[in-house]
């Protein structure tokens, strides 16, 4: 342990601790904009500077490590002044469209200005060029970027994708794909983790709220909504509730208040996925153990960010992917076929909205494969954050809503479906069904949780020994089924390197694109709660355990769906509606012509405020030029005045900088 003093308070900290963490442990918070504990510390914003006795200049506390006898000051007048100047310098190159920014009042940069007590912006000068780029999933608005590089760290180190990197230098710097390529054309997986860490409105999910409101308001459309499992333990955070609070009933109620005609649950789609994926796994296993061609390991396909990753990075390994669509597209396909017939409605009149913890789901529904009979399975995807925005704008008092149920038949689900929202959940849900199909007995784990794959480790593995199987599966007697689970694309790469090398020891692998799974997806609320992962995880397991039915194959409406319509899992009808194929894309997207740039209308909409302001400025300056021929004297006078003010400002700036650097 190291003894030091922070703000005259003697404290101890473990060796190697940074000053910012040591201070935090003792209740002192140091302002910062780029720092992310354990993930990102490059000292780019400099706001976390502290004074250390004996040090020549202030130190970035996110980088400087404590030492014995160190005397640290975090809140001196000098520091406050420097921080304000730093903030104002950043602000001088920041788009001022706060009112029309999606991050208004939810912006770390804005909050920092308030925290630092900045009440003016004195610096005017060169500004970065204005650049907006929208893919179907993620929008980049570089006029708002403060160059903290969190996105770069998340994209490169955490996800190992490397789609974003600082390009150019100085005022031209932007976080972008190579050669300013549009995100929609680059090998971006659309996982959206960058949109979670972006402190400002520079990286965000491409917004679909308006599209959904228009559908709800259209009397000729029947709007059907569904919600993913991970949303129900996170949405509450947007309304001030504790992370992990289960708000399933309130969501169903809110959907009805918003005006949706039918309120279903992606959980039903998850149960359906287990039936299809479990059956597919069994048939692959059967093939492999009966000397027929069967590709193993089989890898789950629910996570579109993961799918896009593998299509880019391992285009020759796509046979390992389960052919199952993801739960919400399965449900969409069922809604526009089975349910449409049931209620006697033309599928083209149905508008399906999926509320997802995910930005990549916006890309998924844009895939040409995700349609049947010419109709997209799902018409719009909104993220958890967008749903919160819509509920608020509809004036719904979410916190005080009484719980309601989803509509039937596509709203009933088992506990197995809820855990689709966390790492290991899809695997556990599949095993609950597959094991029982093979042996006729329940999965031999307490509360049905496959203990070795529960938790937040990057790669988890387990082996399940099959003993005394049913006669149909006699060939599996004594076989150890090896499974692996990973979340986050860096882990996925490790697993795929094994698969590619042909030495993967596993039969069945679950991969989710975001670290910890969908509950920490790119569309989820941005949380500052250190324990958010465990809280959401706990919420989902609680939801699972609270349900009377825990295994997908026990869902009575799933059985009914097969009886009335689909026939059998992996049958002809299922293949047509619920299964898909994949596209070889390549690391430079060179193997396909497919791109996912948002359509021009969307981009135009996003460009509004700042563009209007820029053009207004240009118009004014043009007007001034045009008028310049007239009263020359007046112009010279005003120019004189302008120069005087500029000089005064410059002198003031010099004074400030002098005092900053001399003190």
């Amino acid at each position: 342990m190291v003894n030091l003093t922070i703000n005259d308070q003697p404290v101890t900290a473990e060796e190697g601790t940074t000053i910012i963490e040591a201070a935090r442990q003792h209740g002192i918070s140091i302002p910062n904009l780029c720092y992310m504990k354990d993930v990102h510390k490059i000292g780019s914003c400099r706001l976390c500077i502290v004074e250390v006795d004996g040090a020549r200049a202030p130190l970035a506390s996110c980088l400087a490590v404590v030492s014995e006898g160190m005397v640290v000051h975090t809140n001196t007048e000098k520091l406050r002044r420097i921080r304000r100047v730093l903030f104002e310098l950043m602000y001088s190159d920041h788009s001022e469209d706060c009112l029309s920014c999606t991050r208004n009042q939810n912006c770390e940069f804005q909050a920092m200005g308030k925290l630092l007590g900045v009440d003016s912006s004195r610096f005017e000068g060169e500004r970065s060029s204005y650049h907006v780029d929208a893919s179907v999933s993620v929008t980049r608005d570089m006029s708002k970027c403060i160059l903290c590089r969190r996105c770069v760290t998340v994209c490169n180190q955490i996800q190992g994708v490397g789609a974003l990197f600082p390009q150019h230098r100085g005022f031209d710097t932007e976080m972008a794909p190579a050669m300013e390529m549009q995100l929609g054309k680059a090998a971006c997986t659309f996982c959206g983790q960058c949109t979670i860490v972006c402190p400002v409105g520079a990286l965000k999910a491409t917004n679909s709220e308006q599209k959904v409101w228009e559908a709800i308001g259209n009397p000729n459309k029947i709007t059907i909504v569904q919600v993913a499992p991970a949303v129900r333990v996170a949405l509450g955070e947007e309304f001030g509730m504790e992370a992990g609070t289960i708000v399933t009933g309130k969501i169903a109620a809110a959907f009805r208040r918003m005006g949706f005609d039918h309120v279903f649950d992606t959980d039903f789609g998850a149960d359906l996925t287990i039936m299809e994926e479990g059956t597919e796994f069994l048939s692959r296993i059967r093939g492999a153990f009966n000397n027929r061609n069967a590709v193993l390991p089989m890898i789950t396909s629910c996570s579109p960010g993961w799918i896009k990753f593998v299509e880019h990075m391992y285009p020759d390994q796509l046979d390992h992917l389960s052919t199952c669509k993801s739960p919400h597209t399965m449900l969409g396909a069922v809604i526009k076929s089975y349910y449409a017939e049931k209620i006697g409605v033309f599928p083209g009149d149905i508008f399906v909205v999926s509320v997802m913890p995910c930005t990549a789901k916006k890309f998924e529904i844009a895939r040409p494969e995700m349609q049947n009979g010419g109709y997209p399975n799902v018409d719009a995807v909104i993220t958890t954050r967008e749903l919160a925005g819509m509920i608020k704008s509809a004036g719904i008092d979410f916190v005080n809503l009484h719980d309601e149920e989803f509509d039937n038949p596509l709203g009933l689900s088992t506990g197995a479906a809820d855990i689709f929202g966390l790492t290991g959940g899809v695997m556990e849900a599949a095993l609950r069904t597959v094991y029982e199909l093979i042996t006729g007995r329940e999965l031999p784990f307490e509360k049905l949780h496959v203990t070795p794959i529960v938790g937040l480790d990057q790669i988890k593995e387990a082996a399940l020994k099959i003993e005394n199987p049913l006669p149909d599966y006699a060939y599996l007697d004594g076989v150890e089924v090896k499974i692996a689970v990973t979340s986050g694309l860096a882990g996925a790469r490790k697993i795929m390197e094994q698969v590619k090398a042909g030495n993967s020891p596993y039969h069945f692998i679950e991969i989710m694109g975001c670290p910890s799974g969908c509950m920490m997806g790119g569309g989820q609320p941005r949380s500052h709660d250190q324990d958010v992962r465990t809280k959401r995880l706990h919420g989902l397991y609680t939801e699972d355990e609270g349900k009377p039915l825990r295994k997908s194959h026990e869902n009575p409406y799933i059985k009914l769906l097969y009886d009335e319509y689909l026939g059998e899992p992996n049958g002809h009808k299922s293949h047509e509606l619920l299964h898909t194929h994949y596209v070889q894309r390549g690391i430079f997207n060179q193997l396909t012509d497919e791109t996912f740039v948002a359509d021009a209308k969307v981009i135009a909409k996003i460009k509004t405020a700042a563009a209007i302001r820029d053009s207004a400025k240009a118009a004014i300056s043009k007007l001034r030029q045009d008028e310049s021929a007239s009263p020359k004297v007046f112009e010279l006078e005003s120019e004189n005045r302008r120069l005087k003010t500029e000089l005064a400002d410059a002198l003031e700036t010099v004074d400030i900088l002098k005092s900053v650097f001399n003190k």
Partner: protein
Amino acid sequence: MNTESATNTCPVSERENAFEQIANVIDLYKGKEGSLIQVLHLSQKIYGFLPLEVQEFIANEMDIPLATVSGVVSFYSFFSTEPRGEHTIRVCMGTACYVRGGKKIVEHLQTHLGVDLGGTTTDGKFTFEIARCIGACALAPAMMIDDTVYKQVNINKIGRILEKY
């Protein structure tokens, strides 16, 4: 001077040869941390400039994300993604050269060569750039053509200097 090879990319056989040479360079640096800049530097020498296809080749061979390669290429003004002239003129715009008339030289060259900063003359002979201090402040204003430094340049000297190329 062969204008064709300067204005266009290399002909096919030369191009293949160039990629082979780049592959050799990468082999040389394989496994060494922080060798991307060296590889890019040598690749530019081989290929003449660093278009997307060369960056992709390097990214693929070195197993580095393309965005990272492009980030480094676009950060350093020495790297170019456009075809370059046979010779590169760099006028120093460091403080000493600037105050002693570097700007005038730039303006003169712009009209004389008929290109903007960063541009290449239509005959493919010269690429015209500015440099941030080449370390020849005592000789200000200074100018470089390829690796040769010209000291105390003035407008009257420029014609004679360019004639040499």
